[in-house]
Structure formats: structure tokens, C-alpha cells
């Protein structure tokens, strides 16, 4: 297939995939491309065009808890690597990209060096016990059944936003090995 056309096709898919309805939708939520709400904000092109995320979700927490994780399966629809270098959420003072390092029975999460690269045509899974986007210093509760809008920034400066349902989840309690933050 013509690579140029591939990228163009996928950029449309990425556009449509930016906002995922929280739920109620079976198929809608299982593939980002199928959900196409009106008025989706445009990404700034570049690597963001190749980005999509399937089944994103956020662990519900109170502002008092202070921090939580964002999960889902990221896909790169282009034939070049894309790298997520940072992320943002309106109610989080700080957002970091984390990995989890397991030593014996102890799982410790820490900021990952070099962001989240996604290979050409590849996927990267953000999941409890593994890579995730960490929201810290929350200024409001993230309540179950609400939606959280997360913006990710790529190495080339392009950005993409997606909406993820907030769900209760008992796991994702790794100790945080960072400066000035206690485990959550």
C-alpha cells in the first residue's frame, strides 16, 4: 500500500479517535476509530496524527488521594516512530509518564526516561502494574462514571487529546519512587 495514503487514512482515524465516549457503547469504546463525536478538537498534526488510544480509562480517586493512573492501548498508525513525551490533565498539577519496576514482590513506579516511544505500526499498553500516565496533585475528585480529558504531547511538539471514563479499581497501588510524593 502507498505509505502516503496510509498515513492520510490513519490521520483521519486518529482524529476520530481523539474523543472516546465514556461508555454505553460497546463497539464504540473498543475501537477508537468507530467513535466520531462532533466537535472533536483537532490535533496539531505531526506525530499526533498517527496516535490513537483504545479503551482508555482512569482509576477513580478523590482529591485527597491526590494521584492516579491513566491506562489504555496506544497505537501508532504511521510508518515512523512516535514518542509521547508529556501529558496534561486540567485537574492535575503535575502529570508524569511512569514505568513500574518490580523487584521481588515490590513494585515501584518511577518516571520513565525518554517518554513512551511507540514503534511504527505498533502498540504500547498502559496498564496497572506497567506503563501509565500519572496524574498528581489532583485538585478535584475523579468520580466513577465521569470522563477525564487527557492531552498527550509528542516529541515533535504536536498534541492529541482523548477522553477516558473514570472507573473504580482496587489495584494500581504501586509505591511511587519520586521526589516529594508519598506512595498512593
Amino acid at each position, binding site marked *: 500500500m502507498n505509505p502516503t495514503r496510509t498515513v492520510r487514512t490513519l490521520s483521519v482515524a486518529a482524529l476520530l479517535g481523539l474523543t472516546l465516549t465514556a461508555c454505553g457503547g460497546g463497539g464504540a469504546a473498543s475501537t477508537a476509530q468507530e467513535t466520531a463525536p462532533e466537535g472533536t478538537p483537532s490535533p496539531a498534526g505531526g506525530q499526533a496524527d498517527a496516535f490513537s488510544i483504545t479503551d482508555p480509562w482512569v482509576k477513580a480517586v478523590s482529591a485527597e488521594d491526590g494521584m492516579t493512573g491513566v491506562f489504555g492501548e496506544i497505537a501508532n498508525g504511521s510508518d515512523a516512530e512516535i514518542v509521547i513525551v508529556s501529558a496534561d490533565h486540567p485537574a492535575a498539577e503535575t502529570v508524569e509518564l511512569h514505568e513500574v519496576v518490580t523487584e521481588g514482590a515490590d513494585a515501584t513506579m518511577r518516571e520513565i526516561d525518554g517518554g513512551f516511544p511507540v514503534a511504527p505500526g505498533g502498540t504500547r499498553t498502559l496498564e496497572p502494574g506497567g506503563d501509565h500516565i500519572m496524574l498528581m496533585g489532583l485538585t478535584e475528585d475523579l468520580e466513577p*462514571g465521569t470522563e477525564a480529558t487527557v492531552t498527550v504531547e509528542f516529541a515533535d511538539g504536536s498534541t492529541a487529546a482523548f477522553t477516558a471514563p473514570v472507573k473504580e479499581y482496587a489495584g494500581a497501588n504501586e509505591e511511587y519512587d519520586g521526589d516529594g510524593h508519598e506512595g498512593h
Partner: protein
Amino acid sequence: MASRISRRGLLLGGAAAGVGAAGGALGHRWATADPPPAAEEAVLNGERTVPFHGPHQAGVETPPQSHASFAAFDLGREVDADGVRRLMRLLSDDAARLTRGEPALADTEPELATVPARLTVTFGFGRGLVERVDPGAVPEWLRPLPEFDHDDLDPDRGEADLLIQVCADDPVTVSHAVRMLGKDAQAFTVPRWTQTGFRRAHGSESDGTTMRNLMGQVDGTVNPRPGTADFDDLVWRDTDQGWLAGGTGLVLRRIVTHLDTWDELDRPAREAVIGRRVADGAPLTGGGEHDEVDLTATDASGLTVVPAFAHVRRARTGDPGERIFRRGYNYDLRDHGTPEAGLLFAAFQADPVRQFVPIQRRLDELDLLNEWVTTVGSAVFAVPPGCEEGDYVGRTLLEP
């Protein structure tokens, strides 16, 4: 050990000898390691799915699956209409995924979700939930049934704000779905009760066989047939203009059967109590299971063949609108305490007060079966219409 091995060897040897004797062609095929003849593409029942989305919720017309769990919840005191909306969006999403044989979002045991086995998830709203959202939207019939003399109701199995009926042909599937839905309900509700029931296992009987209850009776013969105009009229609120259009009403009653005293009855007495033959469920006046009972037929002594106190006689009124659709399950609890067995009587009808209550009144007045059954739990729910993909059950009430 040695004897076991030799016995196994003997069995295998015998089997091989049998094959050899059965036919040279087959024996040859095996001997030369040719692939065996292409077996029919067997579809595992565990892979079968029932669509969650549609104008009506699944789990009503769906041919009853082997296992059911009815889980009831009350809303937390602080949960408002927006909270109910968020809850129903989460639960509808879980149901849509699980019924497709996919894990729910954030499913901690995704592998348990891969055997749908005709899983259906059906939501019912109690009076408390509808009042919380919009007191003006409560249907007249959505309230506790009137008191019946023979009932001995335990409030711990009574009315609740939200019911989730989960049915599948596999009990592990039911367990996983109930747990997953319960986790997403946790932030909004407190559990009230869960009642689980069963029918014959999938594949044990031909599809469409009327179930037997644990008293041994064919139970549910006179039932409107899904897909017929009669069923639609009796069950679906198709002419309703409000939020329940396309929905229905559910009466769920826990009926204890007193099997020890039932055991004292000989077969003729059991048949007289019901008015049907135990063997095949046919009316005592003859014919097959689905033939009409002749309530006027008399025997040689001039007495009616179906006694005045018989269940079949008492369960019908003269009004054809006073009929219901039964979709019950047996239950049998023996793990601890006094054993309790009975029927989770689940009946769907457009208007429980108009359709179910007159029948139950007649049974309460006179039905010899009352000697061996006692209703100990009773609840009424409004079952909202189904939803399309991307939508959620309850939107017609929550975002009219």
C-alpha cells in the same frame, strides 16, 4: 498404581481392538497417520452471544439460559440523578462488552470474560431509583404488591432500587459478570441481596423443553410465546409514550417449596393439586402438555376432573389480559443451616398490578398448592427499554 495402569492399558487395548473390528478403512487411516475425517465445525455453546443492544433489553425474550443471578442494590443516600446516569453508563458499557465475550474495561480477570455462553444482563429499576431521578415518572404499578395472606415476606429479599438480572449457560460466566458489575456499582450503591438459580444444564434437554421445578412439576407450560403479537401485547410497553416505552415490568418472588411434606403426597394427589399429569405436564383432562385444560370435564361420579382447588384452575381468570410471561429458576441451598429449596419466580408483564395481581389474588384465596409453597421474598421492578450501541440503559428516564 500398577493395577490402575494395567487397567487403563486394558481399556485402551479394548478400544483399539474395537476400532480395528469396526472397519479396515478407518483403521488404515489411523495407522498411516492421515488426518482424521473433517469433523463438523462444532460451535462451542460458550462462544454463543446474545446481542445486548436493541429496542428491548435482552434476557426477557431470550430462551432461558441455564444459570441466573438476580442482584439487587440500593442507591447510596447521596446519589442523585446524575449519579444514577453515571452508574448506568458504566454498567451498560460493562454489559455490552461482557455479552460480546470481551472483558469489561478495567476487568481484573479478563480471561473469565471470554466465554459468553449466551450471557444477558438485564437492568430493572425499583421505585426508589425512579423516585430519586424523577418522582413524576414513577409508574402507578411500581410499588410493593398488595399483601397476600399466604406470603411470609422477608424484607431482606424485598424491594430494592436496582436489579441486575444476569443469565448465561455457564455459572462461571454469571459469577464473573455479577462481580464485575458489582464492582462498578460499588461507588453508587449498597448491595441488598443476590439470588441465584438454575435450570437444566445446556444441552441436557432439547431447546424449548418446559422446565421442571424441584417439586418435579412441569412449570411454565402456559406462557405467551416470544415473537408473537400476544407476547408483545402482554409483556412490552409498546404503546407507552413515556420513558418505559419498549420496556416491561418484572415481578420477582422467592417461593420456598416445602419438599419434605410434598414427599408425603402420592402421585395422584400431586396431580390433583396441580391439575396436570406429573409425567408430561398434560392436563388431567387429556391430550398433550400444550393442550387446553378442560375445566368443565367431569368424571363418572359427576365431579370435575380438575378439582376446584387445583392450581391450573385457580391460576386462570376469565380475562385474557390477565396473563404473564414466566421465566423462573430453581434454587437449592444446602451449604449451611436449614436446607431451602424453591423457585425464583420471575414474571414479566407490561403492568404487574393489572396482570399479575389478579392471578395471585385468586391463588391466595384458594389453591391447594399453597400448602407446600410459601413466598418469602417479593419485589417489583420497571425494566427500561433496551439501548442502541453507544447508548445506555435508562437514558429515556435520565436524559429524556
